[in-house]
Every structure is written in C-alpha cells, then in structure tokens.
C-alpha cells in the first residue's frame, strides 16, 4: 500500500467532508437536546423579561387594563419619596451588613482554620446552620426574640446593661434597621465564613513561613499574606452580598408583619416593588421599579469590580 508523501497526495487521501453531510436526524439532534431548556427559557425567562420592559411604559391594573404612559412610571418613581426611602433603607442595610458580616465571617474563618481550635467541624456546622433554614424561619424566630418586655433580647440587655425591658425593636422606626442588620448578621456571617474558609485553604503555608522568617508578626502575616491570598474570594463575597442585600425582602416582610413597618422604616426596594405590583396591582410601575433596581445593581457591581481592579493595581 502506497503511503502519501507529498502535500498533494495527503490532500487527496483526506476524506472529503464538504460533500458528505451528516444525516438529517444527526443534524437535528443537538437542537432537540437543547429544545426543552430553550422552550422553558423562552417561555419563563425571555418572554417575561421582554414583557416587563414593555410593561414599564404602561400604567396597569392587572394584565388586562393597560394605558401607555411613556416614561411617566420612571418620572414618578424618581420623584416618589417612598421609593427614595426604600433606596435609603436598602443602602443603609447593605453598607452595615457588609461592614459587619464580612469582617465577622473572615474572623470566624481564620479562627476555625487554625489547627489549635478543638471541634472545628462542629463550629463550622454551627455557624453555617442558620443559613440552612431560610429567611422566613429566621424572620419568625427573631420577631419573637425581639418582643418587648418578654423577649430574650430585651431580657438579656436588661440583665447585662440595664436597658429598658419595653424597647420596641420592631415597632420603633429607629430600631427596625438595627434589628434587621443584627438578624442578618446571625444568618449570613456563617455563610461568608464558609467561603473564606475555602479561600484560606488555598493560601500556601510556605508563604506564612517565609513571612515569619522575614519577621512579620500576626497582623503583618494577615495583611501581607492572608488578605492578598483570598482577595478573589473577598471580591466574590462582597459582590454576592451586595446583590443579596439589595434583594432583601422576606426577612423584613416576615419580621414586620407583612408590612414595611412603622414609618416605612423596613421598606426595601424589592418590598416597594412587591407592594406596587401585587398589592396595588400596578404591574407596569413594578416593572419600572424592577428594571431600575437591575440597572442600579449592575452599576454597583461594575463599580465594585473596578475598585477591586484598582486596588490590585
């Protein structure tokens, strides 16, 4: 048998793929396999998205009564004091949540990453477990803990620092946000801890040994080895927490008795959207709120990414 030894021979020996098209059923197969996802995505993902863009330009009462109003929903939104109250509450919650949850989660992770702590597995599970039960359960639990006169929080504060027993955490407007932030701290610090633990385990031991040889103390090791080593996890946690905080809804809704609370002190952007869409029935306005929130989140996430890149530089 002659073997091809020139380029022309090799080209002649190569099978002609241009002429031999695969059978029809083989060409259809990939499309058939992606069809179930595609159909579901188009019906339940893409269509509602497109429809919500259109709806944002209508005043509606349910899906049937619609009046085209152009940009009126957005104009009204930007001049509505309740919307700005919701934005302010959401931003305050987000900033405080990040400021407390992330250092606490990181601290717990460093503590439980240490070889000297006994029962690490138990504590990992214990700190993470609040995240398993969901916001509704936690909301119900904390609404009982925060009860005035008889609630555990007030009893504890009264016994330790002499705080009044009838402090109304969930009905005094200035205390509602601290109560929500404390509740979410209990719920999410453990979840952040798990992310940070995963990050800490990727930091090489040799780097710490080298830092020790260079005379770095604990703080120096943390600042120059640990933090740069888990920077990617930190950025991820900050972005995910920011997005999650901006979507806050169930926790205040349950804790405040399915309402934004007195003086709308627990009103968040998603709660504002829900009330307008499903209580007042104006799906058009709710769509405008939803898209404004989505664009806002996009802007915040991009800003955070830029900042993290700048810090890296």
């Amino acid at each position, binding site marked *: 048998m002659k073997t091809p030894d020139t380029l022309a021979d090799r080209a002649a020996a190569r099978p002609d793929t241009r002429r031999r098209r695969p059978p029809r059923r083989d060409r259809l197969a990939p499309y058939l396999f992606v069809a179930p996802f595609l159909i579901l995505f188009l019906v339940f993902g893409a269509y509602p998205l497109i429809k919500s863009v259109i709806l944002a330009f209508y005043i509606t009462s349910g899906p049937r009564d619609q009046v085209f109003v152009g940009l009126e929903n957005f104009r009204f939104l930007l001049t509505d004091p309740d919307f700005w109250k919701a934005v302010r509450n959401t931003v305050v919650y987000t900033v405080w949540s990040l400021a407390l949850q992330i250092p606490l989660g990181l601290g717990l992770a460093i503590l439980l990453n240490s070889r000297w702590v006994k029962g690490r597995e138990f504590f990992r599970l214990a700190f993470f477990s609040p995240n398993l039960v969901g916001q509704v359960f936690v909301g119900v639990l904390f609404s009982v803990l925060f009860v005035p006169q008889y609630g555990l929080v007030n009893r504890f504060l009264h016994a330790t620092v002499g705080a009044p027993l009838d402090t109304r955490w969930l009905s005094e407007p200035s205390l509602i946000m601290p109560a929500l932030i404390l509740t979410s701290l209990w719920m999410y610090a453990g979840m952040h801890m798990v992310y940070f633990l995963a990050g800490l385990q990727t930091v090489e031991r040799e780097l710490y040994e080298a830092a020790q040889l260079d005379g770095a103390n604990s703080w120096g090791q943390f600042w120059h080895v640990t933090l740069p080593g888990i920077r990617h996890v930190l950025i991820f946690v900050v972005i995910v927490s920011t997005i999650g905080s901006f979507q806050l809804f169930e926790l205040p809704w349950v804790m405040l008795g399915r309402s934004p609370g007195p003086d709308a002190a627990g009103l968040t952007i998603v709660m504002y959207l829900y009330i307008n869409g499903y*209580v*007042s029935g*104006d799906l058009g306005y709710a769509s405008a709120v939803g898209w404004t929130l989505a664009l806002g989140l996009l802007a915040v996430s991009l800003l955070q990414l830029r900042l993290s890149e700048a810090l890296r530089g």
Partner: protein
Amino acid sequence: MTRFPYGASAAVMAGLAVASGAYLAARRAHKPRYDLRLWTFAKTHGDAYLKMLPEFLRKHSGKSVDIQVVAGEAVTSRLQAAFWSNLDVPDLAEVEISWAGSFFRGRLESIGFRDLTERIHQTGLWERIVQARFAPYTTRGRIFGIPHDVHPVMLAYRRDLVEKLGIDVERLRTWDEFVEVGRRVTVPGKRFMMELPPEGLSALEVMLFQRGGGYFDAQGNCTLDNEIAIETMRYYAPLVAGKHRIGNDLGGGQIFTRALEDGYYLFMVAPDWRTKSIEQDVPKVAGRMALMPLPAFYPGGRRTSTWGGTMIGITKRCADPDLAWELIMHLYLNKEALAEQFRGTNILPPARDLWDHPAYDEPRPFWSNQPLGRLYANLAPETPPQYTSPYIGLAKAKLSEALIACVRYYDRYGVRGFDGFVRQQMARAAAEVRRQMRRNPYLHENA
C-alpha cells in the same frame, strides 16, 4: 438500543416525560368537580360553613359545594392571580376588609367580582343589613360584596383590677373622663390605662371612625386632612407620648396574653371578634374581664366604632350565580345556624332581624356573666361606615408616618406648636395619597 436513534439515556428521559405527562393529564381528568367552590381565609368561617352545608345541600339536591380554607393573606394573592390569569377562579370568595379595595383598582368591567348592587336592592338585603357595612365593598357606586359581619367595638377591661383601683366604669362616658382617670392610674413601664399603640393604627383608626372620619369619603376622595382626621390625631398622639401618656402596646400573640395576665393594660379596644381571641388566648383571666361601650368624644356622642370585617363576593367565572347567591343567603342569613356560629365565634351577623335570637342574650361567664351578644347588638346600628379605595394600603402607610411624626414631636416639644405640626403632617399624608390616585386612569369612571 438500536431502534431509538439517540441512545438509551434519551429513550429513558423521553419515556419518563411521556409517562409523567400522561399521569398528570389523567389525574386532571379525575379531579372532582363541584357546582360551587368557595374560598375563605378564616378557619373558623370554614368550619362553621361546613356545619351549615348539609342543610343547603338537602334543599338543593344534586348540587355539590366545595369549601376551601386558603390560609390568611394567601387567599388575596391567589385570588388576584386567579383573576388576572382567569384560571382556577373560585365561584365565591371571602376577602378581608383591608384587602377588598385592592380588587377595585381597574375598570369596573375588569373587576373579578360580580356587581351585586341590583340583587341587594331587589332582595331587600339593603334594608336588612347595617348599611354602613356595605361601604368597604362599594366602588364607584357599585356594590361587589356582602358583609359577613358588623364588628362593632367596645372596651374590654380587667374588671378585677379596675375595681381594685376604684374606677367606676359607669362614669367613663367621654374620652376626656377616661383620659383623666387614665393619667391617675398609669404607672409607665408597669401599668397602662389602655392598650394604645404609639406606632400602629388599630386604636387610632377606631377613634377616627368613631368620630365619623376615615381615610376616604363615600366618593373615594382622600380625607386624611379634613378637620375630623386632624382633630383625632391631635387627640390621640398625647395619649401615647409625653409624660402624661396613658397607653402603650407591646405586641400581639403570646405577648398580649402575658401583658393582659400581668395587668399591664387595664382597658383595650375589643370588636366582637377579638373577644373570642381573648377568651382563647388568655383563659387565665376568665371571669375577671368585662365589656363597656367606648367613651364618646362629646356627651351623647357615638359609643362605638368598628375594626375589621369580611365580605363575600361572587366571581364573574361563576357559572351559576343564582345558586351562589342562595348559598350566601344560607350562610350569612340562616338565623339558627348563625346563632350557633355566634356561640363559637362571638361574631355578630350583619342582618338586624337575626339579633332577636336568645343566643345573643346568653350570659358569658368569661365576661363576668355579661350578655355579650346583646351588648354588641345594642351598639351595632351605630357602627360607622369605613369607606375604602384601592389606595387604602397607601393611606394607612401615610397615616402611620404622620402618627409617628406627631408622637415624636409631642415627645420632644409637648403642646408647643403641636396643632400646626399635626395639620402639616396630615396635609402631607393626604397629598401623597392624592398624588398616587391621580395616576389611576380608571378610578373616576362611572363615578
């Protein structure tokens, strides 16, 4: 698997999809069908209706009725979704009073409930029922619901403690007299004359309705800045703020139970339905509680108000509205059955001619042997109307904001500049409600 072109896995998946689809389709076909399906949000209502149903079915042989208890607030959101999608709509539905307005937002012909105005007048129901109770279920002059109740309001009190403190309830005829005594017996942090929330609206609303005010008037206009509303706020805020406050609120549920047992409150607002809650939740105070009419705002004034309520409506999807109407008449106007229901719920039915049943005169040991039904029935004709609007939720939120601002102001500055501040807050609240209402293009059609 040579016969199936894409391998065994795909064949199994396709088989499972076909089998599960066929199962679901077959199950749907076997779903029992009823001539009428009724949704209620209250288990007590559902239980009572189930007891009353056999008699209705005896009168309408061959017919079937399904009564479903759909939990709490879910009934409203499910019903709204059912109306919007036109799927799984029940034939009749009960809706809580504060949610009723949300069904009346769009065009009249888009409202999911049938217009019952003509039926109500033709059948004489308009004359039989306390007419004020139709107000919350009326929009643009058309009535879409039949009231389930009247819910007149009295004051419930710890009789044992009140007597021990030397308070003569017969002399508490006006709110001024009540407040004067309250300032004498209140010990902040330990005992308050009355359960009055500094941030919540329940008691403020009761006072507002008692004075003939409300969130909206009969035409659906916001009235939060009229003189009645301003005066009510001016009166209420000092009761829960400042050094001479007489009221506080710790919350509901078990906390309320503990507070009442401990004598933290002496008096509390009690519509008929709440007396049953108190009986069930605070059994320890049985025999030590009593009821009295609300003090009036001026001598000879109205001694009651209203709190809460439920309507029943027939949906437009109902195939047999005549049968649905007969079911409503049976459930809402059956004298014997409602008397029995009253014994279990303490809720006074809405039709006047039902109140002469002996059940309403029975002494109640829990309430110091007072004839609870008769006390409420005597006040029921005076029950004020509470007009509604699709914007009732917003109006409540704005009134709550105004209340909190006024309470804070009074706490800080007392009476100095308080009247002007109240007026300004109420005007702001009303303006924000009106601003939202102006956006609704349907609200003033056929008005």
